[in-house]
């Protein structure tokens, strides 16, 4: 398959793709884009608009009020905005009257809200919050701990407990994860591997879609340029497709190696030391598996994208043809992301052996749990079988598609192409 003609096609693809400005730009841009999305998400999640929050804290008990006041005002100021408080002693009926008086102020957001801590709260910790926007979790998350602190402290006062005992009671259980693996040594698990699995998943997802689209566009271009017939007077359609796909796959592998190079340096040298909570359990084998898996994924998906490109003459029509392929990438992507809370859930286990899904889910899984070697071999075997099948199928459609121009073919016609003796 890798004859002189295929190699000439590969060389051209590398010249156009690997040694091009687009390659450099994309290699830089995809990580920027990835971290951009992550950053944007984090920013939106934590974005708070509490700069001018003004809260009335009310209680029928002066003692609660005093304690809350000293706790709230003693709390370190938040970086992103100040909350001002006003403390008023009143009972439930007065609260109703007060709320009527300040309704317009609340609606105009001059007053953000009113917190009423009934005396009962000392027993059941139930606190009422009246606001135009009572679901402002950013604000409540800031107010909740001090109030909780006050109520807890007051509850235990007089019960002869030491401060140490109180501290203990208030603390949540802290799980330290230790990973049991085939290694003798048991290592404490940091969040490093969770980040890594996210990284693997995201890189796979982004680069498969980008290189896939690129391959599709270039096939459409050859078709609409009419150069394809000139090429076919020298090479067979299979040689042309193979050359294109391998050329693009090599480019994508080089790109991935560049992206992963910091990881390679990290695990193979002692130049950098990660803080213990980010400790990575990662070996060269993981990266090798990842690259092998990526190569199989590229050949499989580029075959599909090239096929779609060969069916249509213009990118607009082709969009209707790529959604099934996109689904094959997007659904596993969401499974892989969802899996990070529990990598051993049933869907993830099964999906890591399902054709196509396996290509995206398995790399994320191996970073989170130890997968027996046999399972890895099985998944690779399944994926290689699918790759070969797709390659043959793609070749059959491609050889017919690239010479057909004019009207957009129906899917039923495309199915007929399999049987064509081209």
């Amino acid at each position, binding site marked *: 398959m890798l004859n*002189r*003609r295929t190699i*000439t*096609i590969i*060389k*051209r693809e590398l*010249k*156009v793709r690997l040694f091009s400005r687009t390659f450099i730009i994309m290699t830089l841009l995809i990580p920027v884009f990835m971290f951009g999305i992550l950053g944007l998400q984090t920013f939106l999640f934590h974005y708070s608009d509490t700069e001018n929050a003004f809260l009335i804290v009310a209680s029928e008990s002066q003692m609660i009020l005093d304690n809350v006041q000293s706790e709230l005002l003693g709390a370190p100021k938040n970086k992103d905005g100040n909350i001002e408080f006003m403390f008023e002693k009143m009972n439930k009926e007065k609260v109703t009257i007060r709320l009527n008086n300040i309704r317009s102020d609340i609606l105009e957001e001059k007053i953000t809200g009113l917190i009423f801590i009934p005396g009962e709260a000392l027993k059941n910790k139930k606190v009422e919050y009246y606001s135009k926007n009572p679901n402002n979790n950013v604000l409540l998350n800031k107010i909740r701990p001090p109030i909780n602190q006050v109520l807890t402290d007051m509850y235990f006062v007089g019960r002869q407990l030491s401060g140490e005992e109180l501290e203990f009671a208030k603390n949540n259980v802290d799980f330290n994860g230790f990973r049991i693996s085939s290694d003798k040594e048991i290592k404490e698990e940091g969040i490093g591997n969770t980040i890594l699995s996210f990284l693997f998943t995201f890189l796979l997802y982004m680069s498969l879609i980008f290189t896939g689209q690129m391959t599709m566009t270039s096939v459409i*271009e*050859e078709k609409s*340029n*009419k*150069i*394809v*017939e*000139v*090429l*076919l*007077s*020298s*090479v*067979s359609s299979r040689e042309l497709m193979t050359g294109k796909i391998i050329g693009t796959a090599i480019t994508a592998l080089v790109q991935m190696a560049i992206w992963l190079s910091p990881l390679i340096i990290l695990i193979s040298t002692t130049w950098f030391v990660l803080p213990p909570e980010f400790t990575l359990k990662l070996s060269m084998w993981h990266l090798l598996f990842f690259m092998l898996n990526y190569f199989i994924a590229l050949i499989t998906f580029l075959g599909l994208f090239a096929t779609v490109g060969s069916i249509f003459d213009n990118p607009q029509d082709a969009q209707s043809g790529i959604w099934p392929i996109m689904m094959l990438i997007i659904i596993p992507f969401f499974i892989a992301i969802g899996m990070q809370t529990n990598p051993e859930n049933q869907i993830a286990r099964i999906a890591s052996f399902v054709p196509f899904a396996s290509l995206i889910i398995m790399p994320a899984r191996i970073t989170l749990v130890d997968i027996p070697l046999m399972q890895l071999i099985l998944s690779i075997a399944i994926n290689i079988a699918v790759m070969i099948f797709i390659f043959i199928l793609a070749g059959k459609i491609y050889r017919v598609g690239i*010479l057909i121009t004019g009207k957009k073919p129906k899917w039923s016609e495309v199915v*007929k192409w399999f049987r064509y*003796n*081209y």
Partner: protein
Amino acid sequence: MYALEVKNLSKNFNGIKAVDDASFIVPEGSVFGLIGRNGAGKTTTIRMMMNIYVPDSGEVILRGTKIGQEFKDKVGYLPEERGLYKKMKVMDTLLFLAELKGKTGKAVERKALNYLKRFDLAERKNSKIEDLSKGNQQKIQFIAAILHDPEFLIFDEPFAGLDPINTDLLKDIILEKKEEGKVIIFSTHLMDFAEKLSDHIAMIDHGKIILQGSLSEIKSEFAQRNVTLEAVGDLSFLDSEAFVEKVENFGNTVAIKVKEASQTQDLLKLLIQNDVKVNKFAANEISLHEIFVTVAGKDANNVK
């Protein structure tokens, strides 16, 4: 032995017979014209000869052996629909296409440069294809077809869409390659070009080869009973004449076919007796167009 032998080629598309049991021979050193109207099956035949399409049945024999991939290296091909990589530079394009044919190295580059000089494009060797005019892009396409010094040149509708300068250029290439002893095969629906350039032809109609052989032999065979007439006057009396087989009016000229070759003299006498003013009376002459009409039938009149 013939250079190329096409044997019983057939090809169906969705049940429609594009090429139906086509056979013809291309002798060594010939300029071979594959002639037929649009949609007759020329491109499909050529694509099967190029091994781009696999025939449903039949085969193409190259000097005694069935063609395969190695044949492609020996052919320079100019498809009907021409195109190049728009973003690729001129010299890169030429070298890439030559490399696909197995030709690499300095020698090819020198040769490419020589051709570019000859076609006035040497200073554009580092331009992108998309920056060239359409006419110049066609020149690059010709160079790409002949750069690897192929033994066979296969041109599909080579004159379609060419400006007069490029038409002459292409004719020159064809004649030059003929001098070098290469085999040139081209398809066309333009009878005029075919008549001027080719020495062997095959006519294809509705996927079937309806006539083939040496052009001069075909012409003399068809011309014996044929008269080409340019005349003024009423010719309707010819229809009732027993020895006249067929009268075809082409506007300026009228083609008349008599039953026996010896009757052409009788025809001339008859014309003069009937007061027809004869401007030109050519016995034993027939155009390829007339032959095509004779063979393909009346409905072939739309072919020029």
